[in-house]
């Protein structure tokens, strides 16, 4: 049989899917063993048991001073910042993109500005952001919002522009005003697209979250990574990175499920 016609069985597909993960783990174990044989205190590629140990000792045991569990504390404060940032960005994105995509007058007035504004790299203007938003929680959320909103706006604007003209004209012949069009036709159809857009920008939101926590913070997943980076504590950094990846994956997965459940009529391109 030709290669192109060979389809893997269910179990084979599972094995094939797990292969790359397994391969990476194995490669890591071998490389780590090689380094540890030379220097048993090597910090660059710690063994898995060492990582588990470190996480148990320093991240999952309540701190003697404050009684807080730093791993849980870090996760909660990061998720809170990320959640607030993403929700604000999504709402702003929705509110800005509909008039931008639908109303030619608004589009003519603001589209070029939004396009240009979305190109400003927020990290480059950090000193200005510090002065406007301070260095506390507001600044961290603001960085996410400034980084993510323009992406959502531009994506949603295109989605609005893609709406079938027939649908809009039909509604108008039935007497719908612009406002009715927005509320009854555009908005309901935009919601699943918004969720799609949020899913796509989640990665960017994480980057901004981690960078804001790297700049000034007292807790958070990004804070911890940048703190222990000072003494090359990969035994702490690697589990944190795996955890962040897992959280990001989970958020994406839940949003996808949520979209399917809430908007079954919406053709989600990657339903698989």
């Amino acid at each position: 049989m030709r290669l192109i016609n060979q389809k893997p069985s269910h179990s084979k597909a599972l094995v094939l899917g797990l292969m790359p993960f397994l391969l990476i783990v194995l490669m890591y174990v071998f490389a780590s063993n090689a380094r540890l044989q030379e220097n048993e205190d090597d910090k660059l590629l710690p063994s898995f048991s060492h990582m588990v140990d470190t996480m148990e000792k320093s991240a999952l045991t309540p701190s003697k001073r404050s009684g807080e569990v730093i791993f849980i504390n870090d996760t909660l404060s990061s998720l809170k910042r990320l959640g607030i940032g993403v929700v604000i960005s999504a709402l702003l994105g929705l509110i800005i993109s509909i008039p931008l995509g639908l109303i030619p007058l608004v589009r003519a007035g603001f589209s070029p500005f939004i396009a240009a504004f979305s190109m400003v790299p927020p990290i480059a203007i950090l000193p200005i952001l510090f002065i406007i938003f301070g260095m506390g929680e507001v600044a961290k959320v603001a960085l996410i919002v400034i980084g993510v909103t323009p992406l959502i706006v531009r994506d949603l604007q295109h989605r609005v522009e893609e709406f079938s003209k027939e649908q809009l004209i039909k509604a108008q012949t039935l007497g719908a005003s612009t406002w009715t069009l927005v509320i009854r036709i555009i908005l309901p159809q935009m919601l699943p697209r918004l969720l799609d857009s949020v899913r796509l920008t989640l990665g960017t939101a994480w980057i901004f979250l981690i960078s804001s926590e790297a700049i000034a913070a007292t807790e958070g997943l990004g804070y911890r990574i940048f703190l222990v980076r000072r003494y090359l504590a990969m035994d702490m950094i690697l589990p944190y990175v795996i955890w962040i990846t897992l959280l990001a994956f989970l958020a994406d997965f839940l949003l996808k499920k949520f979209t399917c459940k809430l908007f079954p009529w919406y053709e989600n391109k990657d339903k698989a």
Partner: protein
Amino acid sequence: MNSFFSPTLKLLVAATLAMSIGASTLAAEVKDKFQVAWTIYVGWMPWDYAEQSGIIDKWAKKYGIEIKMVQVNDYVESINQYTAGKFDGCVMTNMDALTIPAAGGVDSTAVIIGDFSNGNDGIILKDKKKLSDIKGQNVNLVELSVSHYLLARGLESVGMSEKDVKVVNTSDADIVAAFSSKDVTSLVTWNPQLSEIKAMKGATLAFDSSKIPGEIIDMLVLNTKTMQDNPKLAKALTGAWYEVMAQMKKGDAQAISMMAKASGTDVVGFNSQLKTTKMFYDAKDALAFSTSAALPATMQKVSEFSFEHGILGDGAKDATFVGMAFPNGKAYGSASNIKLRFSDEYMKLASEGKL
């Protein structure tokens, strides 16, 4: 199944073998090409000048080797790279040498003690004058760095401890901008950022490293095994260093202006930073400092601070976990785990003119 997985398995074995061979070549051996990392700081600019002016090449040639000084933009990254085995040597402070390579099991030797901070690191308050006013404030600083150590020593001097303040980890690159933010009321940093902030409105320098002289030391650290296998490397570097020191002592205008320019300031700015740096222009002074009783005492303090903050590694049961060796057979901590050595061997050769 079998026919599918066996080639993959072979590939896997080959790849891991290749990786382990790659790892084992990290072991030191006699060689003739070396890389030393440096970062921008007043006490380390002589290394850049030595490279730019050809002094390094001259000394390397004398010993029949090649040395490349590599500038790294991020200080901590340079030490991490050295610890991971990418560089044969690196410039760093005494505390970072203890907590990064030494605590990471990389046996390291401080070959040249270049200077100590004598005002280059400081605690700054906003709209307050006395250090004791820091009580209850957020303090922005690079956590677990010498700034953190300076804060601990400063608080000690006014009968307080770290529990009296809240430390906010803030990157050194952003700390100047941070001072303008309304949330920031006090901070700890080093030069050149320190002089930048000192000049800003409302800033008061409440404590600086001149009050703990000799405790924040800037040095050149080499991998001990590489150094022992290749004494030529240490000799060439020491020779080049003290040639630059002699030029600086004479006040060589060209040398100073090249260093000032490379560190992003002008001659006036560079000279003012030199004023708060106790440079050991003379190898004899560095030698006297490295053999003094003060050095082991300082390192004990640093080791205790590091242990209390959990940065000696998780094998550490107490501050003596990482052993240190000093000239004249003095030592501190675990004799079976000596990972940081202060050597006077090459500074001695330099002071006797035997390089």
